[in-house]
């Protein structure tokens, strides 16, 4: 036995150290590092996938929100368009009504004018006809009076003749 208790030998401790250092280096290079690298790569791969999915989800949510806004905007736009169209329709109707009113007035005034003209024409023709009729009647009357007078005279003359004979 040497002086050091438990037979401790520094040379052998160093040899053990040498042995373990080689083992540590070899295990680190051959096993620990590649396996850990693989695990980290896989982790980062899934983390990337996860972050991508998350960003896609966020983008989708943003797009959805955007579209929701757009839809909300569209509703308002539609409402505004409807109002605009309603207004236009109202204006058009007003315009058409005004036009129709103007047309009607024109038609009425035209009709009135026409009626007046026709009335005047009728009156004129009636007057003419009346005049003609009166003239004719007068003529007839005049003729009839003269004929009846003549006939009366004839009859009187005849009576006188006949009376004288009968007596």
């Amino acid at each position: 036995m040497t002086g050091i208790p438990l037979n401790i030998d520094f040379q052998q401790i160093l040899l053990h150290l040498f042995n373990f250092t080689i083992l540590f280096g070899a295990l680190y290079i051959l096993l620990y590092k590649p396996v850990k690298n693989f695990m980290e790569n896989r982790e980062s791969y899934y983390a990337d996938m996860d972050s991508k999915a998350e960003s896609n989800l966020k983008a989708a949510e943003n797009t959805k929100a955007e579209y929701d806004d757009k839809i909300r905007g569209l509703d308002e736009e539609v409402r505004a368009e409807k109002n605009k169209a309603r207004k236009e329709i109202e204006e058009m109707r007003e315009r058409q009504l005004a036009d129709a009113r103007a047309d009607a007035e024109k038609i009425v005034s035209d009709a009135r004018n026409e009626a007046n003209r026709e009335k005047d024409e009728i009156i004129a023709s009636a007057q003419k006809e009346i005049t003609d009729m009166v003239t004719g009647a007068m003529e007839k009357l005049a003729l009839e009076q003269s004929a009846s007078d003549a006939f009366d005279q004839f009859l009187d003359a005849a009576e006188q003749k006949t009376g004288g004979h009968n007596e």
Partner: protein
Amino acid sequence: MTKQERRKTMIIFALAALVFMIAAILAGDGGGEEEAIQDVMRDAVLHDLNKVSLLGLIDVNPGLLAGFIVSGFLILLALICRIFIIPKFTLVPGKIQLVLETVVGLFSGMAKGNSKINKFLGAYIFAAGAYIFTGTLFELFGVQAVTTAGRSISLPAPLSDINGAIMMGCLSYLVIMSGGIAGNGIKGIGKTLKEYSLPISLSFRLFGALLSGALVTELVYYYSSLSYVLPVLVGVLFTLLHALIQAYVLTMLTSLFYGQVSDNTPKPPKEKKHRKKNSKNKEMKQTAEAA
């Protein structure tokens, strides 16, 4: 074979083993070994009788030779894994990949859980854990070597050699100190030196645990009468158990102390004294008011 038949056969085997064991105990005279049990156990502790030659250069303890064999085996295994298994790793792991990833993940996770600076620590405790576990299991195989005196011995666990245990304990302490330096600079050395008993406790804990296992195994194998059935329990189960426990204990302690000395977060200010003072003042005020 039905269940009943199987049970019958097992009972017969167990009975036969028991009979052999009792017969051996009754018939045996304590073993016909060359050395006395006292010498064997003394040598297991001191390694002064049985030395083996290291490549004909120097005579060393059998534990050192066992250490080289274990290291060679582990390096070979790592090489095989590196060449044949790791290149075939897939995103969804197979059985062997799962085992490798679990082991690496276990030590890496242990390092991560205990310290922020954990790259080197993870690699160190992985190697230390693998060495302790495999080295302890190594004694199960009973690899034979010839001593310088011409005797045949079965090689013990590398760390049941005091020199191996001291190396592991001191190296772990140095690793812890390196963590202290990495985390806190020169202050870290002081932090580590506070735990001055650590290299001794780490070394002798390892040595004591593995030596006790070796001694019990030696004792059991020394007497042929105890060589039936009992080695199954003592040799295999105990060895397996303390291989796991020792690997876990050393790696856990190393990473815990490493985390402690490398931690550089400032301590929160103490408030207890103020609180006590405040509460005392309040009590005094209350009593005064009551009076």
